[in-house]
């Protein structure tokens, strides 16, 4: 767009055409006060706080030329003859804006006086006090007195709950509609609205349950007054008493930047930290309200050792010595392969790295995994390290010219912030295609919705590929340079037409062809796949990989594949090598470990931060069969109750570390408080075990093929000779581990704490006049935006082989007509939800059925249904949803769901019937 030059308070600035006056003034360093305007929201001009004098050159109507005065300068006229709201007035050439004239000052004073006529002025008890734009602007621009008597003020009942998380104080509300617009435009949950008129105008919630949105907490951040406050932070502390600590949300693969606002080592609230690459300025409610677990009284405080049937408190020395003795005993009589290790994909990189180092180099066992081994758990097919998303990707800037395919994912439940990011891309003109077997919230955005049968998603991806080949939408140049096996792929697809593939998936051909065209023609193409895609299997993932390769959407910024693998740091677990295929010798997968444990081949295990025994009796049985089990966790989980030694660790607030998000951005979180109950970080636990083992005479091995073959920086290797000194295991702080990760793990070379701390521009951060825009709630990011790691595809010489093949259609099974699919849920009621205000929103286990299916089976909403598969059966209450496709039984994957009794794999064929309670004999 052409640039426009204008004068603001005597300063000449050049800004892009279409910029509004408030933004232009901000660029010029002039502060225009605003309430309703927010740079992330569309301007509406509701609060009239930004009134300014706008002078434009006078145009002669006859000649359409600028009228020039006697002094040779253009004659200026006041636009419309009165003050103009700056946020909705676009700049124009030659404009002159005056923001400090008497007329403007008078208007600002009057406006604030009006706003304060209905304001209770209870700043001393208001939670916004201290970061309140109304307070600050009143001090700066407002009248010092009011002509209104206090008794004349409008009074409402003090706060009313606007849902169970957010309270509304209607007296304080200035009706700027920021919250309503956020919910409508950004979150896509239009649950707020206005009610009444005039002085009785108020915000109401239109949904049932009230304020039903996963992003409701953000409204309290953008509220320019104290009208919206969170139930979590009501009257907890004054904002100036808080000590914000940069942290990363540990709940999902997005890796939102948050700050833990602490007061005297107590967590007061969680706030978003600005990072345009990750979460802009938003966080979801799970991150905001789901951090109370760190202060739960149920936290483990000291090591526990099993004596008889009971776990009894012990000292660290006793516990570590016992672990070392037992592990050495198992190694001696059953071999190193009889020891297995599981580490949670929520743990930071430092913990995962030392955990695998303990196994690979000290215990010399390759049996490592980060999955729980539940029967319904999908295999992880990872494209993040090979194709990945190009280095420098920033979804917040994408719009027209971008096509996004969301395949088999429910971002709202798996990685909530992606909903906002994808909605933003769609709103800016991007093309969004959602391919999922059941409806998700993304369907409500302007998106092309393709609904294949569950398990048949691969056929949609193949139909997309076939369309590309048929319509010659291939990026030929890219394919010749970097892709192999194109002819073979064409041969494999020769016998199939787009129509037959679409029929196999049960989808409309038009939509698939349109999606393929949009994706191929877009400048930027991104594929996001999630849990349902993983459940669908490797055929789908291979086809998706080929889709990005054939269209050339690989190896460039804003192009590629984003896998949403369950766990906050599953990406890190894969990169650090906490999976059986990472080392030279292949180890056992979790599911194989359970089998081995039952058969007595696996004798000892260390499980870090994971609870595989939860909702999975088979795993519990396998754990009981073990000779020796060590569990390190922050709670006494079901797995920990079966352990021989339980080691407490610090939560994310009590230590520092790094997490790698779905886009392979490594981000650092800081220690927010002294470790709770003096518990060590997970990496330190691994180090203590390793040191004890070495002290008892275990010879550590040299680093094996982990990483790119460079020797570890801390292991001194004499060049030319094979003399390797034993690894000292003398890490003092997490940064020592991070340095070793940077030195040894492929791609992590740039992830030292120094480089992670850099705040890269453009960032909003603290800018000269930020106080006007982001006054109040500070999103300041002092800890940097992290470092994105390059995938293999970012190397311009890397080539890839096309691997898509047409799977055989699954044979119909008349005895089991339904497909049972575990649907991920953000509010799953697991360990993180302890003491959280979100507890009432946790879903109880249930089964969602199509309305017609339910009618045919005579199942009423809420009644119990029996699910029978080849593996077993389970009973769940039914919910009826007419939007769920026929033949699909959706079971939310939440705490207590008895799915492992039924599932034979991620997709299970089941029969469903109304449950008859035999004990009572009635239905």
């Amino acid at each position, binding site marked *: 767009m052409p640039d426009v030059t204008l004068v603001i308070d005597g300063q000449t600035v050049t800004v892009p055409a279409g910029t509004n006056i408030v933004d232009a003034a901000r660029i010029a360093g002039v502060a225009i006060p605003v309430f309703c305007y927010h740079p992330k929201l569309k301007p509406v001009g509701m609060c009239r706080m930004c009134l300014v004098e706008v002078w434009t050159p006078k145009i002669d109507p006859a000649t359409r030329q600028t009228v020039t005065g006697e002094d040779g300068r253009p004659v200026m006229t006041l636009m419309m003859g009165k003050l103009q709201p700056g946020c909705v007035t676009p700049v124009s050439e030659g404009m002159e804006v005056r923001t400090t004239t008497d007329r403007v000052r008078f208007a600002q004073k009057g406006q604030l006086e009006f706003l304060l006529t209905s304001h*209770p*002025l*209870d700043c*001393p*008890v208001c939670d916004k*006090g201290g970061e309140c734009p109304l307070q600050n602007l009143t001090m700066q621009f407002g009248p010092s007195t009011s002509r209104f008597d*206090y*008794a004349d003020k*409008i*009074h*409402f*009942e*003090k*706060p009313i709950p606007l849902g169970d998380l957010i309270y509304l104080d209607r*007296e304080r509300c200035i009706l700027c509609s920021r919250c309503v617009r956020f919910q409508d435009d950004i979150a896509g949950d239009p649950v707020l609205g206005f009610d*009444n*008129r*005039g*002085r*009785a105008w108020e915000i109401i919630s239109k949904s049932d349950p009230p304020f039903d949105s996963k992003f409701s907490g953000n409204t309290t951040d953008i509220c320019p007054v104290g009208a919206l406050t969170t139930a979590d932070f*009501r*009257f*907890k*502390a*004054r904002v*100036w*008493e808080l000590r914000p600590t940069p942290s990363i949300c540990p709940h999902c693969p997005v890796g939102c930047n948050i700050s833990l606002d602490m007061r005297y080592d107590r967590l007061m609230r969680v706030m978003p930290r600005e990072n345009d690459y990750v979460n802009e300025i938003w966080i979801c409610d799970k991150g905001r309200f789901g951090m109370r677990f760190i202060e739960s009284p149920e936290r483990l405080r000291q090591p526990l050792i099993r004596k008889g049937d009971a776990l009894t408190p012990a000292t660290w020395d006793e516990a570590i010595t016992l672990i070392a003795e037992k592990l050495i005993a198992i190694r001696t009589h059953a071999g190193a392969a009889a020891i297995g290790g599981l580490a949670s994909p929520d743990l930071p990189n430092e913990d995962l790295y030392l955990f695998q180092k303990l196994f690979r180099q000290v215990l010399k066992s390759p049996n490592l995994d980060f999955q729980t081994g539940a029967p319904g758990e999908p295999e992880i097919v990872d494209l993040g390290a090979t194709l990945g998303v190009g280095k420098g990707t920033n979804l917040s800037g994408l719009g027209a010219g971008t096509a996004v395919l969301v395949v088999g994912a429910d971002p709202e439940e798996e990685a909530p912030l992606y909903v906002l990011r994808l909605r933003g891309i769609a709103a800016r003109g991007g093309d969004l295609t959602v391919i999922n077997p059941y409806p998700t919230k993304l369907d409500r955005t302007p998106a092309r919705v393709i609904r294949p049968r569950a398990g048949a998603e691969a056929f949609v991806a193949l139909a997309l590929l076939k369309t590309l080949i048929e319509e010659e939408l291939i990026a030929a140049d890219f394919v010749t340079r970097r892709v192999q096996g194109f002819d073979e792929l064409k041969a494999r697809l020769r016998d199939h037409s787009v129509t037959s593939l679409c029929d196999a998936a049960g989808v409309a051909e038009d939509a698939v062809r349109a999606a393929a065209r949009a994706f191929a023609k877009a400048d930027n193409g991104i594929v996001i796949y999630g849990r349902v895609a993983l459940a669908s299997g490797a055929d789908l993932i291979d086809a998706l990989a080929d889709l990005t390769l054939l269209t050339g959407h690989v190896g460039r910024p804003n192009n590629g594949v984003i896998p949403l693998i369950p766990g906050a740091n599953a990406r890190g677990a894969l990169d650090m090598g906490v999976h059986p295929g990472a080392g030279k010798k292949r180890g056992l997968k979790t599911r194989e470990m359970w089998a081995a444990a039952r058969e007595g081949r696996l004798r000892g295990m260390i499980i870090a931060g994971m609870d595989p025994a939860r909702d999975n009796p088979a795993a519990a049985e396998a754990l009981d069969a073990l000779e020796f089990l060590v569990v390190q966790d922050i709670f006494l989980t079901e797995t920990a109750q079966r352990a021989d030694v339980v080691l407490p660790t610090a939560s994310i607030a009590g230590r520092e570390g790094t997490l790698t998000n779905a886009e392979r951005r490594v981000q650092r979180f800081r220690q927010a408080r002294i470790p709770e109950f003096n518990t060590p970080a997970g990496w330190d636990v691994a180090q203590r075990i390793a040191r004890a083992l070495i002290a008892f005479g275990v010879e550590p091995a040299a680093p094996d093929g982990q990483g790119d073959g460079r020797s570890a920086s801390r292991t001194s290797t004499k060049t030319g000779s094979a003399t390797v000194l034993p690894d000292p295991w003398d890490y003092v702080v997490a940064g020592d581990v991070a340095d070793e990760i940077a030195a040894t793990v492929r791609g992590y070379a740039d992830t030292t704490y120094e480089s992670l701390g850099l705040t890269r521009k453009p960032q909003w951060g603290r800018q000269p006049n930020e106080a006007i825009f982001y006054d109040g709630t500070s999103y300041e990011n002092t800890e940097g935006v992290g470092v994105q790691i390059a995938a293999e595809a970012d190397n311009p010489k890397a080539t890839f082989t096309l691997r898509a093949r047409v799977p055989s259609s699954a044979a119909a099974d008349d005895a089991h007509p339904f497909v049972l699919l575990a649907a991920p849920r953000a509010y799953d009621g697991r360990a993180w939800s302890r003491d959280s205000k979100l507890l009432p929103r946790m879903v109880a286990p249930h089964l969602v059925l199509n309305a017609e299916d339910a009618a045919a089976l005579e199942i009423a909403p809420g009644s119990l249904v029996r699910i029978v598969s080849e593996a077993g059966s389970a009973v769940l209450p039914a919910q009826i949803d007419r939007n769920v496709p026929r033949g699909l039984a959706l079971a939310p994957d939440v705490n207590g769901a008895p799915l492992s009794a039924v599932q034979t794999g991620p997709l299970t064929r089941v029969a469903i019937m109304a449950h008859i309670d035999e004990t009572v004999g009635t239905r």
Partner: protein
Amino acid sequence: MIGAIFKGLGTTLRYLFRKPVTVEYPEVKRPVRERFRGRHQLKRFANGMERCIGCSLCAAACPADAILVVPAENDPAAPHSPGERYAARYEINMLRCIFCGYCEDACPTNAIVLEHQYELSFYDRRSSILTKEDLLVPPDKGHGEIPPILQQLNRRPSPPAQIDL
């Protein structure tokens, strides 16, 4: 020279019969000036409610960082103070306090007042921290009515505005 000695003794003799300016301190206490700044008190309203609303402005104003306020939400059925908020904990470290009176100035409800008590000595540092129980005046020693701005919790909401259609 002799004369000078008698002159001096005469002065001594004269003062011997005057009322002494010293007071016998622990038994006799001198009254302090009205604006003397001594040990703090947390005041109450006449109806016995605490004046302190837990706003922490005293703590913010305190140059010696001597005050700790931990606020909490009032139970509407049994409120500690008028309005929504009260101080669940209120502590002043008298070893840190410099008796500047800024807390008094900052207080929006005149809850914290530096009173005339000046005998502040402790056997250990811990007892130098005065808690809310130490600082609060007895319930029957309140004064003043609750100002309208603080009565909002019990106030009848305004009727909806009349709309002329």
